[in-house]
C-alpha cells in the first residue's frame, strides 16, 4: 500500500504573478488562443522538484509549444474541429500537486468494487491515492507517480518518456502536455510477469474552469502481460474544463498489453488526448478508446508496429448525444514486416452529436507481409446528427494486404422490422439494434469486467 504524501507541493502563485505582467518580448508575441495562465513560469514551477534532465525536457517541450502555431481548420488534421471549441482561453491551471483536502465521493466511487491489481486516483491534477498488490510489488511491478519514478527509476523513465513514442514534436498539445503534466502515472511490469487483473486509474475533475495535464507511461517488459484502464470522469459543468493528456504504452518483445481509455467526463469538459502504442517484436498491443462523455473530445492515437510480427487490435467506440463532438485521429504505422493491425471504430449519434473519424494506415518501405485493416461504422440516430469518415491508406511496400471500409447510415429498417414482428416494441427493437452495433467492438475486448461496465454505460445512454 503506497501513498503519495511525499509528493512535493508546487507553488504556482509566482507563475501567476509573472503572467499578469509580461516582461519579455516572447510573452507579448504569444500566439493567439494561448491562455495567460499557461506560460514558461508555470512550466518552471511544475519542474521545480524535477531532476535536471526532466526539467530540461519540460522546458524544451515548452519551446516546441511556443514555436508551434495553434492548429486551424486549414490543417487537414483539424479540418472538422475548431480549436476554439476547446475553450482554452477560459481555464486556469489546476493547482498541480496540491492535494485536495477531501476526495469527492464521485471520485472515490470510480474505483470502488472494481477488480484491479493496482489502482490510482487522481483528482484535479493531483494524485490522491496509489495502491498496488503487495505480491506484485515484490515481483518487481512498479506503479507510482511519474515524477517520483523519474527520480527513482531515471533510466527507465528517461528512455521512454516523450522520446520515441510521443515526443513534444508530435504537435502543439503533445508539447504542452510534455511541458506541464502533473500527477503522471508510471507502470512497469518486469520480464515474464503476468498481471491477472487490470491496473485501474481514475481521473476526476471536481470543478470547472481548470485545465489538467494527465500523463501516462506504461512499460511492459519482455513476455509480460498487463491491462491498463484509464478512466476520466466528472460532474456535468456549465462552464468549461479541459484535460490535455499524453499516453505512451510500450510492449517489449512478446509482451501482451491492453490499453483502455474510458472517457466519461461530464458535459462542459473538453478532452484532448494524444496516445501512442509502441509494439516490439512479436508483441501484442491492443487499445480501446471509448468516448461517451465530455462536450468535445479529440483523441489522437498512433499505433506503431515497430517489431516484426507485432500485432495491434485497435478498437474505438463513441456514443454521442445533444451537441457532443468527437474527433478521432488514428494512425497505424507499419514500420516492421509481418506485423498486423486491425482497427474497428464505431460511433452512434443522437440529437446534434457529431463524430469525425480520420484514420491512416501507413506501410513504410520494407514492411512486407503487412496485414492492416481499418473499419469505421457510423450510425446516425437523428436527422441533425452528422458524421465524417476519412479512412486513408499510404502504402509503400508491395507485398501487403490492406483494406479499409467506412459506412454511415441509419438503423436498418429490416432488422427493426424483424424484431418487431417477434413482438418487440419499436423502442426495444431500436435499443437492441444499437446494443448489437456496439457489441461487435466490445466482444473483441478480452476484459470481461470492463466490458460489463461499458454495457451498462451504453444501456444508460440509449434513449
Amino acid at each position, binding site marked *: 500500500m503506497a501513498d503519495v504524501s511525499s509528493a512535493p507541493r508546487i507553488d504556482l502563485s509566482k507563475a501567476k504573478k509573472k503572467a499578469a505582467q509580461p516582461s519579455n518580448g516572447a510573452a507579448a508575441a504569444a500566439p493567439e488562443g494561448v491562455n495567460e495562465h499557461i506560460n514558461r513560469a508555470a512550466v518552471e514551477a511544475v519542474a521545480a522538484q524535477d531532476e535536471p534532465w526532466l526539467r530540461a525536457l519540460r522546458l524544451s517541450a515548452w519551446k516546441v509549444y511556443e514555436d508551434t502555431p495553434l492548429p486551424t481548420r486549414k490543417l*487537414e488534421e483539424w479540418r472538422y474541429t475548431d480549436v476554439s471549441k476547446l475553450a482554452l482561453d477560459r481555464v486556469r491551471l489546476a493547482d498541480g500537486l496540491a492535494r485536495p483536502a477531501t476526495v469527492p465521493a464521485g471520485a472515490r466511487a470510480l474505483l470502488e468494487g472494481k477488480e484491479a491489481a493496482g489502482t490510482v486516483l487522481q483528482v484535479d491534477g493531483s494524485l490522491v491515492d496509489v495502491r498496488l498488490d503487495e505480491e506484485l510489488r515484490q515481483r518487481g511491478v512498479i506503479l507510482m507517480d511519474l515524477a517520483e519514478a523519474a527520480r527513482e527509476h531515471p533510466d527507465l523513465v528517461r528512455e521512454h518518456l516523450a522520446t520515441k513514442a510521443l515526443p513534444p514534436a508530435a504537435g502543439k498539445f503533445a508539447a504542452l502536455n510534455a511541458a506541464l503534466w502533473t500527477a503522471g502515472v508510471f507502470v512497469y511490469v518486469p520480464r515474464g510477469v503476468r498481471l491477472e487483473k487490470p491496473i485501474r486509474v481514475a481521473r476526476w475533475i471536481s470543478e470547472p474552469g481548470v485545465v489538467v495535464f494527465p500523463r501516462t507511461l506504461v512499460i511492459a517488459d519482455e513476455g509480460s502481460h498487463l491491462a491498463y484502464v484509464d478512466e476520466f470522469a466528472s460532474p456535468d459543468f456549465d462552464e468549461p474544463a479541459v484535460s490535455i493528456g499524453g499516453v505512451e504504452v510500450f510492449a517489449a518483445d512478446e509482451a501482451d498489453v491492453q490499453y483502455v481509455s474510458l472517457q466519461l467526463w461530464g458535459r462542459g469538459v473538453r478532452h484532448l488526448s494524444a496516445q501512442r502504442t509502441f509494439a516490439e517484436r512479436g508483441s501484442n498491443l491492443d487499445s480501446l478508446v471509448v468516448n461517451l462523455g465530455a462536450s468535445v473530445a479529440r483523441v489522437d492515437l498512433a499505433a506503431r508496429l515497430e517489431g516484426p510480427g507485432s500485432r495491434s487490435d485497435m478498437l474505438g467506440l463513441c456514443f454521442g448525444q445533444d451537441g457532443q463532438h468527437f474527433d478521432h485521429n488514428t494512425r497505424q504505422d507499419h514500420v516492421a514486416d509481418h506485423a498486423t493491425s486491425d482497427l474497428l471504430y464505431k460511433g452512434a449519434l443522437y440529437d446534434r452529436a457529431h463524430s469525425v473519424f480520420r484514420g491512416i494506415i501507413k506501410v513504410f*518501405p520494407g514492411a*512486407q507481409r503487412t496485414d492492416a485493416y481499418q473499419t469505421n461504422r*457510423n450510425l*446516425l*440516430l*437523428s*436527422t*441533425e*446528427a*452528422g*458524421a*465524417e*469518415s*476519412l*479512412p*486513408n*491508406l*499510404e*502504402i*509503400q*511496400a*508491395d*507485398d*501487403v*494486404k*490492406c*483494406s*479499409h*471500409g*467506412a*459506412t*454511415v*447510415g*441509419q438503423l436498418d429498417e429490416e432488422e427493426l422490422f424483424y424484431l418487431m414482428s417477434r413482438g418487440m416494441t419499436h423502442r426495444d427493437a431500436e435499443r437492441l439494434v444499437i446494443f448489437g452495433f456496439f457489441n461487435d467492438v466490445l466482444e473483441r475486448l478480452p476484459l470481461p469486467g470492463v466490458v460489463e461496465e461499458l454495457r451498462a454505460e451504453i444501456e444508460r445512454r440509449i434513449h
Partner: protein
Amino acid sequence: MPYDETVSNLGLDEYKYHFIDEEKPFFQAQRGLNEQVVRQISENKGEPEWMLDFRLKALEIYNQKPMPTWGADLRGLDETMDQIYFYIRPQEKIGRSWNDVPENIKRTFERLGIPEAEQKVLAGVGAQYESEMVYHSLKKEWTEKGIIFESIEDGLRLYPELFREHFSTVIPPADNKFAALNSAVWSGGSFVYIPKGVKIDTPLQAYFRVNQEQMGQFERTLIIVEDGADAQYIEGCTAPVYSTNSFHSGVIEIIVKDNARFRYVTIQNWSNNMYNLVTQRALVHEHGHMEWLDGNLGSKLTMKYPSCYLVGEGAHGEVLSIAYAGDGQHQDTGGKVVHAAPHTTSQIISKSISKGTGRSSYRGLAKVYDGATRAKSNVACDALLLNETSRTDTFPYIEIDDNTASVGHEASVSKIGDEQLFYLMSRGMSEDEASAMIVRGFIEPISKELPLEYAVELNRLIELEMEGSVG
C-alpha cells in the same frame, strides 16, 4: 488469346505519341503569365467586354490563391509556369473539313487516327492543337436535330445568350487555383448543346494535342444536356515527350437537366513531362444521370477528381476511374459526389495500378447534405502494386449530415496474389504472362465500359491484348 505478352508489353510504358511537327503558329504570346497575355488572348478571340472582365477578375483570384498543398507535390510547377507559353494560336481559322486544316496539323491528327474514326464511328469531332480548336465538325443528321457542337469560342460568338446563361455557373473561378487560372487564360474546348429529348447514339469526340515544347493548354468545355436528352462525349489527349515540363489545366462544366443522361469519357495519355490539373464537374438535375469514365495513363502528375453535384431529386452520378502510374508518374485521381437532394444515388469505382516507382493516389469525397434524404452512395477502390518501389494511397472523405443517408466506402490494396500466379503458372504460363493476365482481369470491370469500338486511336493507348476479354 495469345499468351506471349508480359506486363511490360501491355504497351502501357511505351509512349507512341512522340512525334513533333515543325510548324509556325499564327500567333504566339510571350512566355509566362501576366495581364497583357490575358488581354492578348481575349483580343485574339475578339471577345465581348464581359468576357475580358471575367478573365481579368479570374487572374486576380489566381494570383491571390495559394498553391494547394493538400495533395500531390506541386513544388516544381512554379518554375514550369514561368517558362511556358500560355497561348499559341496555330492557324487563323477553324476548319470545317479536314481539307481546311493546314497540312502539317492534319498529318498529326491522321497519325492519331482521328479522321478515320470520325468517318466510321463518331457523330462529331473537335480537334484542338495547342491553344485553339483547329477542326470542328458535326454530322449533318445531328445538326438537323438542333445539336450544337462547336468550339467554345464559336459557342460564345454564335449563341451568346445560351452561353452566358450557363458559363462558369458550375465551376466559378474562385473554386480552386487552377479553375481561376483556366478562367483567366482559357482557350479552345467545346461548346455542346443537346436539345430536349434528343438522343444521340454515337459519341461526340474532342481530341487535344500539344505539339510545342513548354506549352500550356487550357481548354474549357461547356456542355448543356436538356431535359430527357441522352449523349456521350469522349476526349483524348497526347503530346510529344520533351525534356522540359508542360502544363495542361482544363475546366469542364456539364449541366444535366431533368431526366437527361450524359457520359463523359476521358482517355488521358499525356507524355510524362505534363502537369495535368483539371477540374471537371457536372450539375445533375431531377432524375438526371451522369457518368464520368476517367482513364489516366499518361502525364507526370495528374490531379483530377471528376465531380457530380446531385441537385435534383432522384439524380444519379457515377465515376469510374482507372489510373496507371509507371516510373516517375503520380496519378492523384478519384471522384467526388455531392448529394444535395433527396433520393439521389451515386457510385465511385476506382482501380489503380502502380508500377516501378509509380504512385497512384485515390482522393475522393462523398458528401450528403442535411435534407438529402435517403441518399445512397457507394465507393470502392482497389489498388494493385506491381513492384517493391511502387506506392499507393487512398484518401477518401465521407461527410454525412443526413441520418437517412446510406454511404459506404471500401478499399483494398494488394500485390498480384501468389495463389493466382501459382494457379496460372501451373497451367503452363510464364510468370510474366500470368501477371499480365491478372492485371487485365483487375481493370476489366472498368475497361469493359470503355467504348473502344468507337474510337480507333484508343486501341493504341491500351493495347488490344489488355482488352482480350472484350476485344
